[in-house]
């Protein structure tokens, strides 16, 4: 029975014709309302951002003050904006580190905690706690740990004077320090989502595998993992999203400068505040959208293959 369930044949398209007239209307509404919200408040503004990226608008006044400057902002961003290169590199590094670190760890923790362990709820709460903390507290927490002058790490390592490590200020290491802090939060996040997914796995599958005498690891790899495929994709995509949008901890430490440049912090620096460079910032945001599109396309190709 387990085998049958696991090696379920690929889904065939459902027959839409079984829907009644009322059902068709219901389905249409169920899709239309959220679509309108997302298109109107996310994609519309996003398109406006793309258009603005070809202007030198400063965010003030009406459209008559908008000058179109062609690709000027993109040219400036790539050739005349020193933080741009590092920002791209940092986002890529972020992505790689998140995949091999916190994402994997979060999945492993979820699998462990999914079993009826003693204290499972307490562990879950502890691992999830960093996710619910406000940014102000997270900033303070890591300041306490990393600070060069008074930080716990330097004190515990017993470093004095010039030997002290400048975790936040040294551009060669501060990104790693931030990755630890960000990974600390990301792990709990992934754990929670994966845990919810594991709960949806049909217990009959495990039971059957256990009857067959499969060990726990084998049960997971052979039985659970394949069923979890859609959730695994969620985890992958979320890691990509989080890595590309990574922003807050770097921002709270030094506004994403001096080794902590990320595309999102550059966008923010240019868009927020007085006399903002909305056009230039929009160009950076558009570049970010373009990079994201690559991952979206990869994801969609996966989905399409699955459906065939």
């Amino acid at each position, binding site marked *: 029975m387990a085998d049958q369930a696991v090696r379920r044949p690929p889904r065939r398209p459902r027959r839409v014709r079984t829907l009644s007239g009322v059902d068709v209307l219901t389905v249409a509404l169920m899709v239309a309302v959220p679509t*309108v*919200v997302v*298109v*109107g*408040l996310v994609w*519309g*503004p996003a*398109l*406006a951002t793309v*258009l*603005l990226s070809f202007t*030198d608008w*400063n*965010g*003030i*006044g*009406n*459209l*008559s003050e*908008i000058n179109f400057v062609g690709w*000027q902002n993109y040219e*400036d961003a790539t050739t*005349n*904006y*020193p*933080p741009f290169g590092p920002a791209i590199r940092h986002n890529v590094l972020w992505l790689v580190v998140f995949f091999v670190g916190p994402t994997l760890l979060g999945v492993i923790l979820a699998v462990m905690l999914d079993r009826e362990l003693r204290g499972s709820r307490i562990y879950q709460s502890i691992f999830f706690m960093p996710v619910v903390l406000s940014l102000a507290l997270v900033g303070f927490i890591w300041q306490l740990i*990393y*600070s*060069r*002058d*008074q930080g716990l790490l330097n004190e515990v390592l017993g470093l004095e004077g*010039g030997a*002290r490590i*400048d*975790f*936040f*200020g*040294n*551009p060669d290491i*501060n990104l790693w320090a931030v990755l630890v802090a960000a990974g600390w939060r990301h792990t709990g996040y992934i754990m929670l989502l994966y845990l919810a997914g594991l709960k949806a796995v049909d217990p009959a599958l495990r039971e059957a595998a256990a009857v067959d005498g499969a060990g726990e690891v084998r049960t997971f790899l052979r039985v659970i993992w394949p069923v979890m495929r859609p959730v695994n994709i969620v985890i992958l995509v979320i890691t990509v999203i989080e890595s590309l949008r990574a922003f807050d901890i770097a921002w709270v*430490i*030094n*506004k994403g*400068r*001096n080794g902590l440049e990320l595309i999102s912090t550059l966008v923010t*620096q*240019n868009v*927020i*505040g*007085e*006399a*903002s*460079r909305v056009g230039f910032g929009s160009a950076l945001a558009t570049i970010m959208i373009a990079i994201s599109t690559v991952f979206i396309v990869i994801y969609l190709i996966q989905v399409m293959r699955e459906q065939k």
Partner: protein
Amino acid sequence: MMNPRPLAGGVSAMAIRRRTLLKGALGAGALAGLAGCGGGDDGGGGGGAVTFGSNWSDEVPKNAIAAMMKGHDAEVSINTVDHNSFQENINNYLQGGPDDVFGWFAGYRMQFFAEQGLVGDISDVWSDIGSGFSEAMKQQATGADGKQYFVPLYYYPWAVFYRKSVWAERGYTPPATMDEFVALSKQMQGDGLVPLSFGDSDGWPAMGTFDYLNLRINGYDFHVELMAGERPWNSQEVKNVFDAWRELLPYHQPDALGRTWQEAAQTLLRKESGMYLIGMFMGQQFPEGPERDDLDFFPFPEIDPAVGADAVEAPIDGFMMAARPRNEEGAKDLLRYLGTAEAEDAYLAVDPNNVAAHDDADTSGYSALQKKSQELVSGAKSISQFLDRDTRPDFASTVMIPSLQAFLRDPDDVDGLTKSIEEQKASIFGG
């Protein structure tokens, strides 16, 4: 879907034409939502309380503002938004129908909004309150068009702060020239002290050092022209500033880029360092009482006798009026009141960490530090605001902060650095 009103009132015919054109050419309606004028409509009528948008969100200044507003004979409804958020969202705030009167800064930061038509002309208020302010103050309240837009409240000078007790113990005396300054720094190093506390994690504290070196080496006029984008950044003059700074770097607290200015203040507090070039607000990091009273300062020393040391960096905070206040009458009355010595006194009685901008303010209650600050500023030939207040804010935050941090990381590549600044300046200032 929410259907935005396609055209707000007040859009010129040209704007409409441009919008239609855009829509047609780009085949997208997305920009429609952007159309329309920014200012809020003033449909609220003339009466009612005056609204005041306050970015004084810290405990002490917030109370001081409340005390100050209480002294006005009409009702003032205060809307306090935390300082940082207010600043980051000022564009939205001013375009979304701001409070009648609101708090802001002097300098280019004020002039910029005046030029954009986002703040109201208050020259008529100045004809009533003008006699209470020095010419320098009035100048800082004046836009590029010669009209006044700003009522100053207080200023806080930047200077080199130190602890009197440490200096008395070691027998240090304030240096007047750069040579003495360097000699003193060396002496402090010999005594096991860090000569200059320094924390630049936020990026802006280093601007103070740059400004003072620039003011002392090239003078106030050069500073103004450089900030206005009229002078090239890759000139020998600017390189001289960076070269002088490099000479001083060995006396700065190391690893400044990972340290906040508050943490740097703690090293001075704990008597681990001898001096700290920072604004007067730093005193608030010291526990009230004997620790805070132990603070003193001296002006940044002279470098070139031909230039002298009579330029002081003293940012001014104050008030502005919305471009189209709902209660213009009330707003101007309030501003007239805010420009009086009584209003200043009411403020400073609660928040003694600044110095009154008004000439007739009561100085009898001043602390020694306040008195000295007042003398420093009134004796100054010229007053600069601060790098991020004297130049375009986008240039200051997206170009200068990263560039100064790059210099601190790698002080030897001044040529490359200044060239890069100049190129980025050209793209921001528009050539």
